[in-house]
């Protein structure tokens, strides 16, 4: 497990240093997001399936692209699972959140001007849940489990998926704009002021 963690960490670093075409400043906002996501995930671990990481993965993917999104997913999972416990599931959690970020890099939650759309973020709260849930559920598949049993397992988890969705909506509504300001912290001040003036909640 230690070897796998080291390999995953190396991949995350490689993805961070690998050149990306986008010129946006991403390093410190991303690190800040990793720290914030990890701490909040640990702090909220006593509530089942309430995961602020998902909505943050959506925003990172949409803002900085798939490469940084995957890196974010790896770093957050490694950091938070250092406290919550590592296991086979860590890999699937990474793939789950990385997939969410990857989809968000295509189905963006930012408009063409780079402003956060609350409508799209609310919609992302919904579509991100089955992506993450199904990928993480695959971790329990073994040779002795039939597809019917796997289907039952997924069905049994639907209520918790609803909880995941409601949690995502909550984080989007309450912290979406604040997260966005963090992600844009290294942009020139005049652009931020302009964005703030133009911002109208569309939800």
């Amino acid at each position, binding site marked *: *497990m230690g070897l796998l963690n080291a390999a995953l960490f190396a991949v995350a670093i490689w993805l961070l240093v690998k050149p990306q075409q986008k010129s946006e400043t991403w390093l410190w906002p991303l690190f800040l997001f990793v720290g914030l996501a990890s701490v909040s995930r640990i702090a909220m671990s*006593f*509530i*089942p399936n*309430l995961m602020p990481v998902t909505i943050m993965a959506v925003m990172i993917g949409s803002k900085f692209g798939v490469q940084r999104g995957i890196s974010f997913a790896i770093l957050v999972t490694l950091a938070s699972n250092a406290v919550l*416990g590592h*296991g*086979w*599931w860590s890999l699937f959690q990474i793939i789950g959140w990385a997939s969410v970020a990857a989809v968000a890099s295509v189905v963006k939650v930012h408009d063409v001007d780079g402003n956060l759309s609350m409508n799209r973020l609310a919609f992302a709260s919904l579509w991100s849940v089955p992506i993450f849930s199904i990928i993480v559920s695959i971790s329990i598949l073994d040779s002795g489990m039939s597809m*019917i*049993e796997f289907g*039952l*397992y997924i*069905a*049994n988890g639907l*209520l*918790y998926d*609803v*909880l995941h969705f*409601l*949690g995502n*909506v*909550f984080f*989007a*509504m*309450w912290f979406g704009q604040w997260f966005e300001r963090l992600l844009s912290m290294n942009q020139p001040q005049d652009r931020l002021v302009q964005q703030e003036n133009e911002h109208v*909640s569309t*939800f």
Partner: protein
Amino acid sequence: MRFALLLLALLITPLAQASSESSWTQEFESGYISTQPLIVEDTIFVRISGFWTGEERPIVAAFEVQTGKEMWSYTSQTSLQHDMAPLLFVEGGSGTCGTWNDLLLVGWTDGKVTAHSTTNGSIVWQNQTEVELLGITGKMAYEEDRVIVPTRTGLSSFCLADGTELLDVDTGNIGWRNGVTITERGYVYGDEIGYLHQVNRNGIVLSTYIGEGKIRHAPLDTRHGLFVHLQTSQGSTLFLNGSNIGNMGASPAMPLFHNDRIYAATSDEWISISCDAQSCSVDSIEPFHSNGELALRIVDSNVEVWAPSNTPNGGWGVFNQTSLVRYEATTFDTYGTAAPGFDSGIIALGNDAGILSVRYQAAAESSSESSDIDAVGLLHYLSILLLFLLTCSSFAIKNWQQFAKIGSAFLLVAAIAVVPELSVKLAEQTASEQSVEWDASWPDEWKGTQVIVFEIDGKEHVIGGLEPQDTVYELTELACESLDITTEVEQQYLGAYLISFNGSVGDGWEFTIDGNWAPIGMEDAQLNVDSIVEWRPV
């Protein structure tokens, strides 16, 4: 608006109910309460002996649990005051002798057995047993359609429907508080000169001499044989299957058997006896003075053994499996030998002053852990209420941005409250049925009992034949204790979560019941009497 008010009322009602709960006390002037009050649904039944001298008459009475209002009482004009046979409640049913409604069965020291209607106390039937100075003083039991009564000199059984005598055995030896136990082979009881009598259902008696002393309790039927706490002239002796397993203090209490543990007490000590696959042995002794009935209570899967302190200060000692946890006291404490009566959330305490005190669990619970959980639950509940009001308010003033924010918070905290329980229900509905193969290497005695298997670090540990448990959590705890496997369990939001066996954490642990993976927590996973549980690393 009306919908909002209705929902608000629904949310507030449980809080109002919770705060309206209270306790009550009933003082009897006619004698001691020496036996456990019985709580059956909304009724408490209690018996009071006379003071053994004077003119007071023994009474059996029924009270409403919630209010303490007397429903009925029955006074015996012929009994001899030393009434110490525990009350016996039998649910309505039918058998070869006919049908019967709910009955409260009372054994009296004048030798009578009376069956009372639980609703008005009227005598449905009565019958007479042998009297030699005294009559019935021991604990009765019932089996199918008959009640088994330890009489002064033997044992009788009567039909529950009409009181017809079905069996009458007379050994000639005197008995006192000589409770009866039903076993596979028949009925067992002891006497005042150290004999244990095994009565087969056809009436054949096999008497075994245990030792010089008095058997003043119903023998306990363990998998290693009958357990007897013999009162001797020097103190008392613990016998298991006829063998001495320990010498203790004087005037033993009536022992209890639960989860492979026997709990006993004397004037000198409280005793916990642990049974494993081979035998039973004294595991723990605490200084305490108790001579009467012991009672068992399960709180959040934890065992509590309540022992009345038969001292001038009185009160009750509350023990876990091995040690004294706390004292419970009332404002009227004095000598006592009656076990408390328990029902969900209710404790009924009686003592030698003839005072019955009924109180609710919420008031009696002193555990800081449970009060913490209650506080969190209350806070959660209040936050749902507050967020609901704020959501309504945002809706009323048409502030949609605020409505979205507060509404999302309301839905989330409401979902956190209901999803875990709903999920358990759903899982129970959808659980698939499979079978698990019986391992030929397991002893045949384990068949029909709960068996549990642990695969720890590649090695399999297995045990069966334990006392049946209700949940995977309870069975796991019991089995690990018997197999000397250490466990680390963490209380999480969804209940108990197993961290490790023998320090082995691995990638986590999962269990199956009869080969079926259970998508619920071990505290919620219910067992049958013959379930096979398997714990394996993830």
